[in-house]
């Protein structure tokens, strides 16, 4: 049994270390792109196959975004980011649930012991991935906020000297923006990584039948986390476009 918080490095491209999580995110991205292109290659008014599946997913997500924004224009603006976050997280998380995820790997000698470094590790079970997603989400929130209500109004949410009370509230808002970065990334990482550890331990203890419910649970957790991440981003985006009322 080999449990490591950090994703294991497999090889290097130049000075860039390539971890198993990175490989999974690349595979997942490629898969999404290829499937997406297949789905839209021969679009038909009466959909079938891959087109139908993607249409259903996209329509569902569109409805979800609509239910938060209540504004078609805004929905169209936010939709690509939200949908991509959702699709990327859910597929990256589920990739870690594939059979053999902790078993197929490279044999390496680590601190004098021979260990198997798994080739597959959920993309979101690596803080680099989740921090990257959180950074994209938080930066987008700031940019959208500035773009929609103007730089000074947006800055006024955080720096407000009209009264000591408002100044303090502004500071809190500023801290909360930074803490979003941490809460976004650690929530996703913690959930998916904990699931991986749980499954590894369960398989190690009882190889058959018993881990199955946990496997289903992790499928569910992957979906929930993808939903939570994308919905929170969406809600923060929506909030950033609204002027502060005092």
């Amino acid at each position, binding site marked *: 049994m080999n449990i*490591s918080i950090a994703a294991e490095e497999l090889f290097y491209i130049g000075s860039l270390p390539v971890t198993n999580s*990175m490989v999974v*995110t690349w595979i997942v991205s490629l898969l999404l792109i290829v499937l997406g292109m297949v789905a839209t290659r021969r*679009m038909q008014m009466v959909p079938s196959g891959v087109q139908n599946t993607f249409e259903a997913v*996209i329509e569902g997500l569109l409805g979800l975004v609509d239910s938060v924004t209540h504004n078609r224009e805004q929905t169209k603006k936010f939709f690509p980011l939200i949908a*991509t976050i959702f699709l*990327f997280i859910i597929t990256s998380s589920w990739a870690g649930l594939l059979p053999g995820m902790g078993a197929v790997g490279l044999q390496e000698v680590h601190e004098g012991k021979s260990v198997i470094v798994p080739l597959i590790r959920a993309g979101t079970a690596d803080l680099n991935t989740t921090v990257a997603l959180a950074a994209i989400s938080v930066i987008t929130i700031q940019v959208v906020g500035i773009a929609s209500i103007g730089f000074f109004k947006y800055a006024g949410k955080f720096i407000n000297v009209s009264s000591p009370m408002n100044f303090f509230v502004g500071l809190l808002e500023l801290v909360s923006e930074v803490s979003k970065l941490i809460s976004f990334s650690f929530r996703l990482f913690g959930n998916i990584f904990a699931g991986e550890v749980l499954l590894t331990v369960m398989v190690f203890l009882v190889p058959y039948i018993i881990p199955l419910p946990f496997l289903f649970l992790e499928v569910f957790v992957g979906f929930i986390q993808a939903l939570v991440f994308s919905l929170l981003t969406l809600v923060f985006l929506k909030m950033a476009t609204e002027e502060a009322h005092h």
Partner: protein
Amino acid sequence: MEILEKLGIDWRILIAQIVNFGVLLFVLHRFLYKPVLAILQKRADTIEKSLGDARALEERLKASELAGKELIKNAKREAAGLLEDAHKLAEQKRASALKKAKEEVERFVVDAREKIAIEKEQSLREAREYFADLVLQASKAVLEESVQEPSPATVKKVIGKFTQV
């Protein structure tokens, strides 16, 4: 930042993941969301249009049904009017025919009466002449036997007595 290292955070990987996500976002936006959203919109438009068409058709159907009903009602009313007119006309004709017949019959009766009166007059006159003649002859015969021939004036007086009714 030892804790970041312990958690496995490496800025090179971080940037690689950001770039990866950016590329994914761009490609999916270009090749998946745009066409799918476009076709969803197109389908929604088509459905809305068909629904609108169906509604319009239904309305037209309802209108034509209404018009048909109106037409039938009018025709019925017209027919009823015509029938009534015909009845009235027939009644009039019947009444006038009856009146004419009555008048004719009356005329006939009057004519007949007149004729009968005339005939009666004539018969009476004829009878009177005949009787006068008869009486004259009879008187002549009787008087020839008896005394003498009465004077013509007396004869006339006697006849006048007989024929006076």
